[in-house]
């Protein structure tokens, strides 16, 4: 038996790529279970994303677009593919890289180095915005104060605002993030597990925040994480890959574990969960929060103060539980009215009971 034949016998036998029927397959697509070769993989991967962009009318020609770039696999591949598609299909976009420095030593400083390399590799101008500058607190300082629970709550809330501020600095029209199909399926599950109906109704939208400061969209909404990683591997794209040191305690980890187990049994489950999420309809009798603006900073908020302001207030006053946790019972309306009272009565409330 010749060595070459032996090797190809192992790699799916004498089967050839499902699409071109010429080359040796290197990947089994979770989405379709097709066995495809490298070149066909690049083509379908890029073409599908192009179709998502065009089909959902994500961009308009001439727009300035910031790519939320962390140096991780999703944002690096996003920057690469978006610049490529922008060129190939003449989207006419002005692309930028926007990075947030949360101040997590040993994690963020390393990944920022990757984004700086991406800036050079892809020729996209980079803007970095830091929590320290925006809020006066780094994540390391925050964790020192609040301990190892609820870290992601603070970071996620602060990052969302930080991206908007960064986008405003760059004067961009739109923000894109690298959230992939696995992420969105996890989020749908997470919101179900928590009974967060408001978020459940929004989390599968491919574009959000159109009525806010900066709309943001997710071109990778239907793209599997496995394919993003394989694309980056085969194309030898430079990305940073370490888990945030504070994330092992995040609740999302459970949803992620579950999704990964599901994917193993039935890979289509990921897209099907997203479809279920898209087709949810909220009962008309369910009370939904109304959108207004934060009294303190003017950011969009469904409460008197936006979440970032509540959390910051807690930090600055040494009340780490402020803004964390859920109200007991169903008296949401009553809590709202109570919360609309003066700062004095906020102070007099017990830690942890302030959640609206």
């Amino acid at each position: 038996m010749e060595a070459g034949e032996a090797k190809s016998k192992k790699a799916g036998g004498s089967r050839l790529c499902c699409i071109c029927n010429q080359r040796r397959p290197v990947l089994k697509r979770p989405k379709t279970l097709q066995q495809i070769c490298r070149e066909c993989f690049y083509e379908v991967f890029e073409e599908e994303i192009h179709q998502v962009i065009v089909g959902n009318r994500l961009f308009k020609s001439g727009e300035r677009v910031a790519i939320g770039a962390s140096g991780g696999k999703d944002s690096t591949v996003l920057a690469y593919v978006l610049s490529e598609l922008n060129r190939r299909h003449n989207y006419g976009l002005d692309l930028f890289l926007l990075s947030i420095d949360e101040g997590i030593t040993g994690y963020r400083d390393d990944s920022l180095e990757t984004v700086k390399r991406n800036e050079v590799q892809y020729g996209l101008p980079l803007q970095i915005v830091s929590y320290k500058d925006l809020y006066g607190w780094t994540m390391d300082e925050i964790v020192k104060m609040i301990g190892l629970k609820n870290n992601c709550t603070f970071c996620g809330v602060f990052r969302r605002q930080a991206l908007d501020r960064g986008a405003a600095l760059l004067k961009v029209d739109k923000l894109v993030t690298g959230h992939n199909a696995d992420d969105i399926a996890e989020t749908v599950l997470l919101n179900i597990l928590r009974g967060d109906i408001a978020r459940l109704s929004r989390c599968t939208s491919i574009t959000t925040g159109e009525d806010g400061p900066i709309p943001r969209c997710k071109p990778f909404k239907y793209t599997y994480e496995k394919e993003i990683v394989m694309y980056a591997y085969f194309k030898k794209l430079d990305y940073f890959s370490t888990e945030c040191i504070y994330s092992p305690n995040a609740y999302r980890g459970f949803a992620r574990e579950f999704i990964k187990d599901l994917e193993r049994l039935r890979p289509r489950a990921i897209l099907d969960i997203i479809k279920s999420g898209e087709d949810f309809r909220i009962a008309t009798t369910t009370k939904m929060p109304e959108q207004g603006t934060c009294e303190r900073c003017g950011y969009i908020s469904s409460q008197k103060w936006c979440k970032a302001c509540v959390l910051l207030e807690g930090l600055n006053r040494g009340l780490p539980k402020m803004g964390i946790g859920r109200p007991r019972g169903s008296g949401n309306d009553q809590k709202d009215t109570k919360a609309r009272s003066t700062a004095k009565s906020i102070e007099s409330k017990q830690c942890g009971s302030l959640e609206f």
Partner: protein
Amino acid sequence: MCLFSCCSMIDLRRIMCRGGLELLCDSEKIHKVNVDLPNGAESDDFTMKHLLSWVRTNLIKERPEMFMKGDTVRPGVLVLVNDCDWELSGQLDTRIEEKDVIVFISTLHGG
């Protein structure tokens, strides 16, 4: 060309750990290894299943649960044998041969 039929070990060109997995192997991304075959086993029988067990014992220095779950890799860890998705070659039943290159990539981190 079964050159190795008389040997009791398999010489792999390299095993690579990517996507953060290298942290479990003393931060070494690339390992050149010779794997001793289990007693009495023919080199023809050496599969990914055996290799995984070998890797867990010999290369993973900490937190093995990040790499494996039961007999197989933890969901979210991709496996490539000679740059091919192991799903194409039967996953755990993939036969491992002389000079093979194995790559493990973890996808379980922020993007």
